[in-house]
């Protein structure tokens, strides 16, 4: 165990200020989600009224369900494609244009979302695709795939290539060697990548609003449009639920990547 240096008063103060800056707004939102009052800014005592309201709000529930479906499917597809891309980039022979390929893979990381959203919209219009669940899912897959690729590739990069060679030496064909040795070792990174893709998709407003169609609003789109007509306390309740979900996912993802970096137990499937 490393010895943790004691915090000075200055450190404690700056830490507290920083945390307050980050989390005070969220904390206020969470508290006000339990507000009994109809007015967002006036405290009227504790109540679960707005949670009740939300669960009876059909449109809102549908948007939440849509968001979850999009997040799960796009995260799954992105994880599959991103993992394959990471393997191709770190394991494949040095093929022509490899640098270009990896550069292009990572471009969405820095590309403004408006541009990604707009270009996807143009593509879907050109293809005459009916906009809705699938177009949003595809758009989110494009957005999140590179994140998965980055996470998995860094894990693959730190993995000793001779492990796969040892498996082949001991009787595995290349595919079996990958499945029985490499895959268990990169599994935590794949899980972490999936979680990251899931939360990114759940959060996204910009790309979703470009690529969705009538009757297929995701939760962020729905909330945004409601807020424009005035903030209802119900929004606070929904946001609190989303925060809770994302917090759980992030904790699992960070646990997974922690397991991934401590080699010893890293095969534990999550």
């Amino acid at each position, binding site marked *: 165990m490393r010895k943790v240096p004691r915090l000075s008063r200055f450190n404690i103060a700056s830490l507290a200020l920083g945390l307050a800056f980050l989390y005070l707004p969220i904390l206020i939102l969470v508290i006000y989600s339990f507000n009994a009052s109809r007015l967002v800014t006036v405290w009227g005592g504790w109540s679960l009224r707005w949670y009740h309201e939300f669960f009876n709000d059909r449109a809102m529930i549908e948007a939440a369900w849509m968001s979850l479906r999009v997040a799960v499917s796009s995260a799954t597809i992105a994880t599959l494609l991103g993992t394959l891309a990471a393997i191709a980039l770190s394991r494949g022979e040095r093929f022509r244009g490899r640098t270009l390929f990896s550069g292009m893979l990572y471009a969405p990381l820095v590309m403004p979302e408006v541009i990604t959203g707009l270009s996807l919209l143009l593509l879907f219009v050109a293809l005459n695709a009916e906009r809705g669940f699938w177009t949003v899912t595809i758009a989110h897959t494009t957005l999140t795939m590179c994140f998965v690729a980055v996470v998995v590739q860094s894990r693959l990069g730190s993995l*000793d290539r*001779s*492990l796969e*060679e*040892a*498996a*082949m*030496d*001991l*009787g*595995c*064909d*290349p595919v*079996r060697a990958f499945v*029985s*040795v490499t895959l*268990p*070792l990169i599994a935590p990174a794949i899980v972490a990548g999936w979680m990251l893709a899931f939360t990114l998709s759940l959060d996204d407003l910009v790309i979703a609003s470009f690529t969705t169609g009538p009757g297929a609003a995701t939760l962020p789109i729905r909330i945004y449009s409601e807020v424009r007509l005035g903030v209802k306390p119900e929004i606070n309740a929904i946001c609190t639920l989303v925060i809770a979900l994302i917090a759980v996912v992030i904790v699992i993802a960070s646990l997974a990547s922690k397991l991934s970096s401590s*080699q*010893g*137990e*890293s*095969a534990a499937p999550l």
Partner: protein
Amino acid sequence: MTDELPRTDVAAHAADGDASPAAGQPLLRIEGVAKTFGTFRAVDGVSLEIKAGEFFALLGPSGCGKTTLLRMLAGFEAPDEGRILLGGKDIAQALPHERPINMMFQNYALFPHLSVRDNIAFGLKRAGMARAETATRVAEMVALVKLEGLEKRKPDQLSGGQRQRVALARALARRPQLLLLDEPLAALDKKLRESTQGELMELQRRLGMTFIIVTHDQEEAMTMAGRIGVMKSGKLAQVASPRELYEAPRSRWIAEFVGDINLFDGESKLRDGHRLVVGTRDAGALVVAEPREPIGTGKFAVAIRPEKVKLSRRGPVSEAGRETAINRLDGVIADICYLGGTTTYKVKLDTGGMLQASVANSARIDVDAYSLNQHVVAWFTPDDCVVLQS
């Protein structure tokens, strides 16, 4: 991972350890093997025969192609030219899992997600060995490398020496016809390395298995191997027993690579019966035994190992009859390097050159030890020198 695969031919070989030629019979034949990476010719036409039961070392500086050659034997690289025959069958293009050959990796390459037991059993499961038999074999291997009680540990809970043993047990478990060891002791500290050298030799003798070891450490190769192949720039420079390599190196490069040596560039040579009289710039005229292979017209040098050089205050007066033929060089002690068992003196010769002499410290209190700037006579017999083509 317990699925029952149909046994392949190779797996059956590996599991039963049969079909391996008897000791002393040729096991492996490498014929004109070459490998080029881009424009770099890593292995350049190597031919070699290895007998069953042999402990063979590939020795060379880094980048000489020894690891590439080993990887071609294991199947991780395919040779561009030549054949690799194992028991008469060409395996040059076979994939690693199709060869009855196992390898111990330099960094051990233990599977971090598997316990010691599962690491050792990995290859047996792949060969489709039954569960009970696998357990017996694993227990046998664990006992062989003295790892009892650690079967359930993960590799990161083991010391360097223990990891090395797991790697060895894992590579031996399939009873390969040929075991390849890539710098197996490089990661161990000196004391552990020395004891492990002994254990490896003992194990190889006991199992009667054929070992090929790759190393850059000449002492390691000399200690363990029955035969050594010295590689330089992708070619085999010499294949010989450790003694022959040391006492009769085939070239100046090998002489300098293996152990310490004094070299004097020759300028002229004169035949005198069974001896040659070589004129050197730095050590004057030296009398040397006639080399087995005649030296050509190119540059050449006289080489003498430091421990073959004797020092005395007045010269070898008592060696009656041989005095005329003895090489006698006068000089002063220029440097003293005390190494415990031996002391290495650097003698500045009156003729201009430097000569290293290694003297055994055979007495604890040595009143005759030489001191700096003392005048000494260095001498050696013609049979202790070799003439080398530069």
